[in-house]
């Protein structure tokens, strides 16, 4: 375990290196804060007058639903409505307990309105026909929220414009949520080409002419992040991934310093093998990277209200795989660059280009498809996709997350092997 001496030594040196700490921890936090300030969302800042505060109570009688599929579907619809309220740009939503005493919140202004999903809501949904969405329908939906078995509680006057806006907003949301289920139920399939049938059923000629594939509504069984929180939920992992890879610079400089100080040669005199030496020089940076990511995520949660997703424990393998790929790439780069100026020139360009190309500066979905596909050669892309699954998706696909981690581990193994091979000639 002689390599552990090198690990301890390098950790001490890193902790004493204020430049490294600034680049790895302070700089990303400052960066995220600045972005937060420019979007006016630092610490959840927003003009309270512009935000509608809406609570949702789900009073669906799940026990009365005999079939498990119905119970799941009813819960799924309710969750979609809750998440729809939370996901709006100008509203803040929260899920309330079924027996919640919300009246006080309405009176003291903590909530503008409360949407109650009544016990009969799911039953009504089951009776709906596609035609009900049109003006020629049966008229159930003509009654607005009440027709769907939902009640709006608010202390706002009945004539208030705000109340009307809230009511319309929630009705649209409910309809948008329910209709896909209605369509899928009626066509007895989960994935159908609906254009022709809808046109025939609705007798409507104004629909788009191309065939539209309607996918079955996805599962949403838990409360997801709201719109304000989502900014940081996307921003923090993106910038964290970018700054994790800034470790390459610090690592390369550490190797160069070791060489220039002559201590590398002294380490090679010592009774320690080359793999032990490489492990000793690499492990501290992996540990620092893990601490860096953990710190940024904790700060993200405490300062910016970042949401860690429905499966926070799954972040651990992603964080580990990302940090490992950064340190392995760092080892390879460190054994290639020959001078400090090369680190400044090449390593920075590599790190920033990889980050930009992979989607650290903007959501990957915004990138053109060729860029999305091309960026898959970089570990950043895989890390970002894994974080997206865990933090943005209401129901992460764990199979995909493990697959992304596997790719990152493979990348790490290749870089580490190449780095070890290069290290034999590094002097």
């Amino acid at each position, binding site marked *: 375990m002689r390599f552990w001496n090198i690990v301890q030594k390098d950790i001490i040196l890193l902790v004493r290196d204020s430049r490294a700490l600034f680049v790895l921890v302070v700089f990303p936090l400052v960066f995220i804060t600045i972005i937060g300030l420019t979007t006016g969302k630092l610490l959840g800042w927003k003009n309270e007058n512009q935000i509608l505060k809406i609570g949702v109570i789900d009073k669906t009688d799940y026990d009365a639903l005999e079939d498990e599929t119905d119970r799941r579907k009813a819960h799924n619809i309710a969750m979609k409505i809750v998440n729809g309220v939370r996901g709006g740009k100008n509203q803040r939503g929260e899920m309330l307990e079924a027996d919640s005493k919300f009246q006080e919140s309405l009176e003291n202004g903590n909530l503008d309105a409360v949407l109650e999903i009544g016990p009969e809501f799911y039953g009504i949904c089951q009776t709906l026909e596609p035609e009900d969405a049109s003006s020629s329908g049966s008229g159930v939906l003509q009654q607005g929220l009440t027709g769907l078995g939902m009640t709006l509680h608010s202390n706002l006057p009945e004539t208030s414009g705000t109340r009307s806006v809230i009511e319309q907003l929630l009705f649209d949301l409910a309809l948008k949520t329910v209709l896909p289920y209605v369509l899928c139920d009626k066509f007895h399939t989960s994935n159908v080409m609906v254009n022709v049938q809808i046109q025939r059923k609705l007798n409507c000629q104004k629909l788009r002419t191309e065939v539209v594939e309607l996918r079955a509504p996805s599962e949403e069984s838990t409360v997801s992040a709201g719109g304000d929180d989502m900014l940081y939920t996307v921003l923090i992992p993106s910038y964290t991934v970018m700054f994790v890879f800034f470790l390459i610079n610090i690592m390369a400089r550490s190797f160069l310093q070791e060489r220039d*100080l002559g201590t590398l040669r002294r380490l090679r*005199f*010592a*009774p320690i093998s080359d793999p032990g030496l490489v492990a000793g020089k690499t492990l501290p940076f992996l540990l620092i990277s893990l601490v860096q990511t953990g710190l940024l995520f904790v700060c993200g949660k405490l300062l910016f209200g970042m949401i860690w997703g429905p499966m926070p424990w799954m972040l651990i393998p992603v964080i580990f795989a990302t940090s490992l790929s950064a340190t392995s790439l760092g080892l390879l780069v460190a054994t290639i660059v020959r001078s400090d100026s090369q680190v400044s020139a090449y390593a920075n360009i590599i790190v920033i280009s990889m980050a930009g190309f992979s989607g650290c500066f903007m959501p990957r979905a915004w990138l053109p498809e060729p860029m999305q596909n091309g960026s898959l050669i970089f570990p950043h892309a895989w890390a970002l996709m894994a974080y997206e699954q865990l933090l943005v998706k209401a129901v992460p696909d764990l199979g995909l997350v493990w697959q992304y981690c596997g790719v990152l581990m493979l990348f790490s193994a290749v870089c580490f092997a190449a780095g070890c091979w290069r290290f034999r000639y590094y002097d």
Partner: protein
Amino acid sequence: MSLLEVNRLKKSYGTHLAVDEVSFSVGNGEILGLLGPNGAGKSTTIMMLAGLIEPDSGNMMLDGGLLSHADRKSRQQMGIVPQDLAIYPNLTARENLRFFGGLYGLSGSELRSRITEVLSQTGLSDRQNDLTCEYSGGMKRRLNFGVALLHRPRLLILDEPTDGVGPQSRAHLLDCVRQLASEGMSVIYCSHYMEEVQELCDRVAIMDRGKLLACDRIDRLLGKLASRLRLHLVDASGELRARLTEIPGVTLQQCEDHLILSIATRNPEENQTLLETLTAVLHAVRDAGGKLTTVESDEPDLERLFLQMTGSRLRE
């Protein structure tokens, strides 16, 4: 019995032969001086001993065991003081020693006591908790030296340990080396400072262009060189020159406005000859009215030996 045996060690880089069948040995408690101009092959030899470079042929035996390139365990018995400083400036002296001690397998109370001993030995106890970037050059050199002593190596290799060091630190280091050798530690001492090597070493190995030119006790090597007595004369007339030329063992050399007269002396047995020659020369000078301005004695030393063997000065 020798602690280290180096047998016909050879290393080449492409067509350049860096070390050409070099053989030498170092006994227990012996200090061997390794001399050679830049590019002589000293560093390559040291790197092969340290396991950094694999020799093309030849072998090295340490305490009777074969020292292979990949053998890290045997290197535990070696301490190497590199020419350039090899300490961490952002660690204190104690932290540097703790790190390198741990690397050589020391731990716990043994490590702590060795650190204390080495700090005292190198005169750094008072500044042990200061970052080494705040040290003077001499203090850094002493710490660089101390690091190699921590694990009590049986063979200590010093590569230019006093380069750029003030007289006080230099004297301290040389005293330390002497002390260690007296305690049984074998030392290979590479230096450009001839007087240091002459003062410190029992034997000297001289290398040039990859070859070992000589390896023997210093007195034996110097014994092969003649002493010279040089007299500087002015106003030397033609008559004086003619008389001096006739005296056996005298060589003349005109240097600008004065004449340099060299009388070779080799060993004590020739003292009588020297007396006769010198008497004849002085009589001739007095009789011809010449003026004797300077008398120099040119004793054999390593510098002259080196110059004679390699044809170049050490720092060239």
